[in-house]
């Protein structure tokens, strides 16, 4: 059928948000119900897309392309390939989970739910748009609901956390905007696909130099602007300082969204925008970039180890997991010559990146869901030292959270392993020293996650929690989905790999010059 | 040449003279014993009829003529100016209706009319002697009019100052005129010009120029001959001040321009920036600059509205001198346009002050507080007059200034030589906005004190003011109506 699937997919949560926001403050149940319904519609839509996606070709599908403001080169351009589809799927899964988790949030429930729906719309839009203006519209659109979700429902220090989050991201966005304006000026295009082609022919730097001057530096300057925009989102050390506070202060269901999907926006940006359009510049500054990635991996793991707040531990762990993605990205971009079968290694690395994005999204949001469940039982306490030995009273909870923690650790058989494995498989040949250093991160991750398990679940039972109730039936149903997916993807990653591989191969070819 | 011819050519003046006699007669003989108001209304009626008749005679019955070698020159332009002067007189008389400063109605009105006669002769004169005589006729009437409020000591002081200054400046003028006669051998302006042509800068000529400028500078209240003006305007009964500010300015500027351009035709010199050449132009330029600056800056600190208008008159004299300076046909008509509209405007402004003064007992800024609520029509007229003086479009003052400045700027197109003076004028004009706004602030923004007396506007005065305001607006939007005749 020739319906504009992607437009509908994006508009449904947008429209839903408007409807929910219009409800009164007392109609909480209606608000929640409607929100869930809309998000499930989104899930259904994503599943349909998945079914109808032609997994054999790496090209864009479900393309919609219309002129919007011709004089400025702005087009309404949507399309999905494997990468986009994966991200859309992730969003469609995580958002309903978050909505269900926040079922008991009462204060201004209708606004809360409307904001979540608008967040979803923004995310769908970001992952499917392919013209800079169109894409940037949704990229920025995501910020407002996120800001308010943190600001209005968050913890004690939510004001500064939200402000920091907003301003950091905005700074990145402004530099991103400036860079793309320069690019449009030079090349006459806002279209990501066109620009990628031009970059393949090494035209972009030359054109920038012609249009603006500063021939020797303009390319790097523009690259740096765009880089900053995405590096803040991922985040890369040293642009990460907004994250721990934001994740900690936001209500945990919101953190599920932040870590599950929004952090992937940054990596997606690297993949969709930065890598195809600025390969020359990446090569030029490759070593510093790799160092940044390594530092991100190692430092964040060490920092996680030093934290005492559960959410902060997991926050730093998030940074760590995404660091692997960036490691692989940089390695792929800057691979030196003389490697055996470079395309294969690159494809492996990129497949790993995509998988890691999906898996981490799932796992991390599940983990924060578990933290939320603990918080509900402990009255908001979530320090490492507050608990102890609770596996005696909540065995089911322990078991399920344990599975999620081990997946995050990278235990084979669970989904976290596959992504990391592929990344290392690809990066070792391409940049051995970086891969070697990054294994420290793996080690430290194992340490702090096991420490967490030990402190919280094992050991003598903390008398305070002797009466802690275990998971209710609805909660078990809720966590069943991510846990099940963890197993499925751990054992049968081909389910996803089959869909994304052609896209990855095409990406590698795109970079191969 | 016989007296019949004189009377025919000077028909308007003759009519007016007869009116003077009739007014005196009516007041002193017929209406003796009636109330001041009745006498005033009767006298007013007679004066207005007389002026109208004179105006009709000037308008309709015109013949061209040049009597006695320039003593009485009648041509369309002088006739038009006479009509204007008569209009101004009519308005002055209408405005005097609300003043309660004197019981000597007949004398007052006849002095006004006599002053007008003097001005009318002044406008028609192209001969030095005639100029001097008419000037004196007008001035003497004005001195007495200034002193008319016998009960007010300041009026007497003002009149004395005016008289002494006036006498002295008349002496200077006469001295200058006699020098001119001596240099050229004639008292007729074109003939003087012919014989002075090609003379170059000559010390005696320069002295003649300077003294003439002094004489007329006093008359139009230009710096540094202005010292009488603030006191005279403030002390004189307001309608007299109005008359001084309006009619005499029109005539004086016209004749000054005539003398300088016609009489001293060859001796202009140049006041162009970096292009100084000795002559009457630089002298006028300096006087103009000083007037603009001093007039505007001093007006800022005034608290009496009449004094404020006096200093603003000094400033406007500066602008008008710009028109004299430029010495091109377009600047000449711009000057006349400006001075006529200025006269209408300032007459209106003084009219409003008369009403407020009569009702509240003073002309300080505070007396105008809340005028908008107490007398909305009156304050609307005040708004129109003051904004026109400030030069806000679409009022006549703005167009007048634009004409003047563009004519002055365009006088020496190659080098935009006079532009420095134009810039000074524009800057000072911007400054003037502040003090006009101060008065309007009182009227529109501030509230009257709770015990402020009510303001009743006599219908006759109101009619005159509304008419004046309408004229100011109409001439501002369609200046062509007036320009055609200039």
């Amino acid at each position: 059928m020739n319906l504009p699937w992607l437009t509908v997919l994006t508009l449904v949560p947008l429209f839903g948000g408007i409807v929910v926001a219009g409800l009164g403050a007392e109609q909480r149940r209606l608000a929640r119900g409607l929100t869930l319904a809309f998000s499930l519609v989104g899930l259904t839509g994503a599943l349909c897309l998945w079914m109808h996606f032609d997994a054999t070709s790496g090209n864009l599908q479900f393309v919609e392309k219309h002129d919007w403001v011709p004089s400025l080169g702005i087009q309404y351009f949507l399309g999905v390939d494997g990468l986009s589809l994966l991200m859309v799927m992730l969003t469609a899964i995580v958002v309903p989970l978050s909505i269900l988790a926040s079922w008991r949030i009462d204060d201004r429930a209708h606004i809360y739910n409307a904001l979540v729906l608008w967040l979803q719309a923004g995310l769908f839009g970001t992952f499917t748009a392919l013209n800079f203006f169109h894409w940037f519209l949704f990229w920025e659109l995501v910020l407002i609901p996120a800001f308010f979700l943190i600001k209005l429902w968050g913890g004690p220090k939510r004001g500064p956390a939200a402000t920091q989050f907003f301003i950091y991201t905005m700074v990145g966005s402004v530099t991103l905007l400036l860079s793309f304006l320069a690019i449009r000026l030079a090349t006459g295009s806002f279209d990501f696909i066109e620009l990628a082609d031009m970059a393949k022919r090494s035209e972009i730097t030359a054109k920038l130099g012609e249009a603006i001057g500063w021939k020797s530096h303009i390319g790097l300057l523009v690259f740096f602007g765009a880089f900053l925009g995405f590096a803040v989102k991922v985040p890369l050390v040293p642009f990460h300082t907004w994250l721990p506070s934001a994740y900690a202060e936001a209500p945990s269901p919101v953190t599920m969204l932040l870590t599950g999907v929004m952090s992937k926006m940054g990596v997606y940006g690297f993949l969709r925008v930065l890598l195809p359009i600025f390969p020359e510049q990446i090569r030029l500054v490759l070593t510093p970039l790799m160092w940044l990635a390594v530092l991100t991996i190692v430092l964040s793991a060490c920092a996680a180890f030093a934290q005492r707040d559960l959410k902060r531990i997991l926050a730093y762990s998030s940074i760590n997991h995404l660091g692997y993605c960036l490691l692989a990205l940089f390695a792929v971009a800057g691979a030196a010559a003389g490697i055996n079968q470079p395309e294969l290694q690159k494809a492996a690395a990129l497949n790993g990146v995509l998988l890691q994005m999906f898996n981490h999204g799932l796992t991390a949001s599940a983990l924060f869901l578990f933290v939320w469940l603990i918080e509900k039982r402990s009255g908001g306490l979530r320090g490492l030292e507050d608990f102890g030995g609770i596996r005696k009273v909540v065995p089911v909870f322990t078991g399920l959270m344990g599975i999620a923690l081990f997946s995050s650790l990278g235990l084979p058989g669970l989904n976290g392993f596959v992504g990391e494995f592929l990344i290392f498989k690809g990066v070792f040949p391409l940049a051995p020293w970086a891969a070697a250093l990054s294994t420290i991160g793996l080690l430290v991750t194992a340490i702090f996650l096991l420490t967490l398990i030990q402190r919280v679940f094992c050991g003598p039972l903390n008398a305070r929690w002797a009466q802690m109730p275990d998971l209710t039936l609805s909660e078990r149903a809720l966590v069943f989905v991510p846990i099940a997916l963890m197993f499925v993807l751990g054992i049968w990653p081909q389910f996803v790999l089959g869909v994304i591989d052609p896209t990855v191969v095409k990406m590698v070819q795109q970079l191969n010059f | 040449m016989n007296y019949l011819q004189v009377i025919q050519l000077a028909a308007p003046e003759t009519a007016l003279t007869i009116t003077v006699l009739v007014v005196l007669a009516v007041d002193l003989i017929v209406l003796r014993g009636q109330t001041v108001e009745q006498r005033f209304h009767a006298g007013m009626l007679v004066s207005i009829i007389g002026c109208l008749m004179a105006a009709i005679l000037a308008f309709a019955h015109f013949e061209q003529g040049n009597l006695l070698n320039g003593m009485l020159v009648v041509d369309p332009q002088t006739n038009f100016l006479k009509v204007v002067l008569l209009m101004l007189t009519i308005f002055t008389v209408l405005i005097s209706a609300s003043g309660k400063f004197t019981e000597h109605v007949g004398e007052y009105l006849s002095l006004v009319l006599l002053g007008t006669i003097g001005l009318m002769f002044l406008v028609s004169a192209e001969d030095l002697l005639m100029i001097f005589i008419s000037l004196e006729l007008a001035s003497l009437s004005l001195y007495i009019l200034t002193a008319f409020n016998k009960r007010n000591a300041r009026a007497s002081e003002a009149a004395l100052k005016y008289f002494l200054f006036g006498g002295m400046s008349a002496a200077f003028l006469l001295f200058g005129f006699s020098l001119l006669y001596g240099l050229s051998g004639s008292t007729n302006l074109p003939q003087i010009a012919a014989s002075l042509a090609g003379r170059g800068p000559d010390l005696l000529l320069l002295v003649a120029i300077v003294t003439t400028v002094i004489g007329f500078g006093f008359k139009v209240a230009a710096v540094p001959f202005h010292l009488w003006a603030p006191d005279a305007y403030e002390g004189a009964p307001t309608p007299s001040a109005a008359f001084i500010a309006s009619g005499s300015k029109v005539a004086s500027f016209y004749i000054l321009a005539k003398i300088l351009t016609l009489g001293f035709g060859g001796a202009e010199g140049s006041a162009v920036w970096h292009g100084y050449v000795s002559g009457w132009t630089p002298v006028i330029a300096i006087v103009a600059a000083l007037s603009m600056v001093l007039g505007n800056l001093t007006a800022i600190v005034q608290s009496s509205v009449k004094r404020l208008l006096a200093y603003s008159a000094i400033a406007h004299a500066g602008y008008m001198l710009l028109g004299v300076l430029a010495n091109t046909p377009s600047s000449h008509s711009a000057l006349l346009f400006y001075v006529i509209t200025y006269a209408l405007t300032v007459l209106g402004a003084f009219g409003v002050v008369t009403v407020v003064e009569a009702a509240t007992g003073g002309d300080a800024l505070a007396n105008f507080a809340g005028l908008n609520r107490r007398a909305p029509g009156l304050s609307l007229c005040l708004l129109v007059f003051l904004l026109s003086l400030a030069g806000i479009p679409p009022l006549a003052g703005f167009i007048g200034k634009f004409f003047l400045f563009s004519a002055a700027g365009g006088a020496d197109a190659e080098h935009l030589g006079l532009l420095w003076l134009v810039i000074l004028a524009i800057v000072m004009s911007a400054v003037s906005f502040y003090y006009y706004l101060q008065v309007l602030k009182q009227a529109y923004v501030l509230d009257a004190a709770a015990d402020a007396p009510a303001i009743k506007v006599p219908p006759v005065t109101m009619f005159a003011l509304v008419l004046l305001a309408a004229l100011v607006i109409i001439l501002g939007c369609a200046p062509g109506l007036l320009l055609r005749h200039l």
Partner: protein
Amino acid sequence: MLAWTIYISFIGVLVLMLLPREAARAARIIALLTAIAGCVVAFAGAIQQSNPGEVTTIVKVPWIPSLGANYFLAADGISLVLVVLTGLAAIAGILFSWNVEKRTKEFFAFYLALIGGVYGVFLSFDVLLLFMFYELTIIPKYFLIARWGSTRKEYGAMKLALFSFVGSHLVLIGLIAAWVVARAQTGHASLDLLELSKVSFPLGFQHWVFPLVFVGFGILAGLWPFHTWAPTGHVAAPTAGSMLLAGVVMKLGAYGCLRVAMVLFPEGVRMWQGEIAALAVIGIIYGAGVALVQKDFKFVIGYSSVSHMGFVLLGLATLNTIGLSGAVLQMFSHGIIAGLLFAVVGRMVYDRTHTRDFNDLQTMQLGKLLPFAGVTFVLAGVASMGLPGFSGFVAELQVLMGAWKVFPVATILAGLGIIVGVAYILRAMQKAFYSDAPPGKFGHDHPLEPISVPERIGAVMLITASLVIGLFPGLLLNWIQPCLNSPLFERLLKGGSL
């Protein structure tokens, strides 16, 4: 047809003046009807205009032949954009002044006179006529602020009036000089904009006349460092006054810069291009920086106006099609957004709380008590930040693109300005509406009157306008861009178009 926007406004003034003193309701309704009529005419005339690229004469009648002045009203694409803005802003201003009780009919009389004058400026193609309407607007402005304003109203009004007057007189000097030189060159006097634009003024002459005229208009446009009247004036003005001042009147200055200074003296602009850009950027950053530290809510918005006008001036300084297009679009966009911001601060907040101090507002939990105001401010604030989807983004996009080409450093600094812009909006939003400070007694002691229907209509109207143009900028760009390609702007853009 478009000329009727002017006439209708002044007819409205006359009708209002004839009303009896106490007829407040009638005054409001008449004023609203007049503004709506004007807006409808504006839209109709704009849509009717078949070719925005050329100057379409509405009325051309000889006026003062000796000066070469005609009563010449015309419109091209840029005029249309601004006329439409005026229409919208006029209606919004009246809706947000629905609660004026003191001397209502006079308030609206001055208001409509101001609107009429503004329409006149945007439609005049004779330089004298343009100048006349330009100066005409100073008087209603003065009285609106001096009589109905708030903080230091008389001082603010006088400062504003004097600055505007001085600015317009600087322009007058330049205009007279230009008229004289043009007359000498072409042999006949003319004040017609189109004719004057074809005259090649000598370069030395342009070197000093252009800055004079540009600065003269720039004073009203908030050109740094002549902007100091703006914050004081905006804060002193009543809500509708600030909305119009920041929304429309500042645009008069920018329009004058473009239509008169730049079109008449294209070589002059080039000579001073760098300086203008520098001042514009300083204005952007300075305005934003100062807004960041204000304690008074309205001052934040006042300074933000200076900052946003800096973008307009930067766009003008780029001298390429896209930069100029961005400048005009920013004029429209900022007009709407500033109107909205002042409406929230002045009408929705101040009229109810009687304080604009953040320290007081923080304790009031306005986000909960006045949710509509909170949401409106959020939307207006993000539009002001330049969030995509709203009109400000497209405008800033174009200005920055144009600036990249010519002034790369300025572009980066302007980006810095945008970031500071984010910061001050965020700060204001948090302090005024969503503060975490402990609640004071305010909301419980004095129940706040809910947001009235006229306010809601006004807010929705303005937000919709910004959204529509943000999502479909083509609507306005289709007017602006053909206009910039027309012969009138040829000499100006010759040096580098995009």
